[in-house]
């Protein structure tokens, strides 16, 4: 609480496009294990471009929009500070280094992929990543367990997507319309 009031006093947006670019470049450069915490550290704690509350609000919006959350945040914040140019510069800054690194890592991996043990390690990493998704879903779902309508929607979507393997192109629009109806009826 105290931290957010301190942060609110002296926040100032980046002064020029170069600063915006290096800020997002720096976020992308060190975002091992997830971008969000590094985005917070860079923009709220170090450079003080925006307040804690402002950051949370922006990320909240981006989580509801389609697209990568932090990628959307770069678009929204870039627009707020510098218009279209800002959106493009922030997005490119964010993606530039991770793009190079992920391709380099994959290229190196492909050169050694014929070692069975390395295959086993990488498969283990992938499945652990799947576990992180399951953990995230449980974390986000905790607030919904007391709402039968929410649980019904979750179960139905899961059966359609994961078990029956229907296309999300059908599941997402239908599920969203049903959920919107339930939300308007105050069931969610």
């Amino acid at each position, binding site marked *: 609480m105290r931290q957010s009031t301190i942060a609110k006093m002296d926040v100032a947006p980046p002064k020029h496009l170069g600063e915006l670019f290096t800020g997002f470049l720096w976020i992308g450069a060190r975002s*091992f294990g997830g971008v969000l915490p590094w985005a917070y550290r860079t923009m709220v704690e170090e450079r003080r471009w925006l307040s804690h509350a402002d950051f949370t609000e922006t990320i909240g919006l981006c*989580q509801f929009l*389609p*697209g990568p959350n*932090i990628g*959307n945040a770069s678009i929204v914040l870039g627009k707020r500070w510098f218009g279209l140019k800002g959106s493009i510069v922030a997005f490119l800054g*964010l993606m530039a280094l991770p793009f190079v690194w992920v391709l380099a890592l994959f290229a190196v991996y492909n050169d050694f992929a014929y070692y069975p043990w390395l295959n086993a390690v990488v498969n283990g990493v*992938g499945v652990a990543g799947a576990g992180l998704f399951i953990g995230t879903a449980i974390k986000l779902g905790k607030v919904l367990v007391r709402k039968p309508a929410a649980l019904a929607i979750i179960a139905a979507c899961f059966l359609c997507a994961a078990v029956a393997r229907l296309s999300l192109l059908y599941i*997402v629009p239908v599920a*969203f319309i049903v959920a919107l109806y339930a939300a308007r009826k105050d069931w969610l």
Partner: protein
Amino acid sequence: MTLLELAFHFGILSLISVGGMPSVMPELQRLVVHGKGWLTPDEFIQAFAVGQAAPGPNILIASLIGWKVAGIPGALVALAAICGPAAVLAWWVSELWERFKDSPWRRAIQRAIAPVVVALILSSGFIIATPASPDWRLWLIAGLSAAAMLAANVNPLWMLAGGGILGAWLL
């Protein structure tokens, strides 16, 4: 031709990716492995693993798929296509969202999206941990990783490292 196909399919994925990359993994796998045969099931999970372990937004798995399909141009097109339509939408919506701050529709949309996103992320985890027939070793690694994440607030790289060690031992 392949570049156009990449752009088209990933562009559509972009628009349904509510909640980000985790939500569209089921569709991505359906398309890339079963629909187009661009990657084998093994290659897909490996691309996913590299995308998780490398720094940066995990949407970059799209550029790994693009790279497998059509080299560096494929990587660039895939990333642009999966981010572009959503980015345009974010650009337009961010102001509207602010303006309708107190609208009941905004609150309804927020509450409606939550269970859908939870279901999609859960489905992604399940599908990646079940590439073919159910395998208790994969489910064990995924379960431990999920439990560790819920129990301790540490950098997820620790869970990925643990998964790698267990993978070397079990798989």
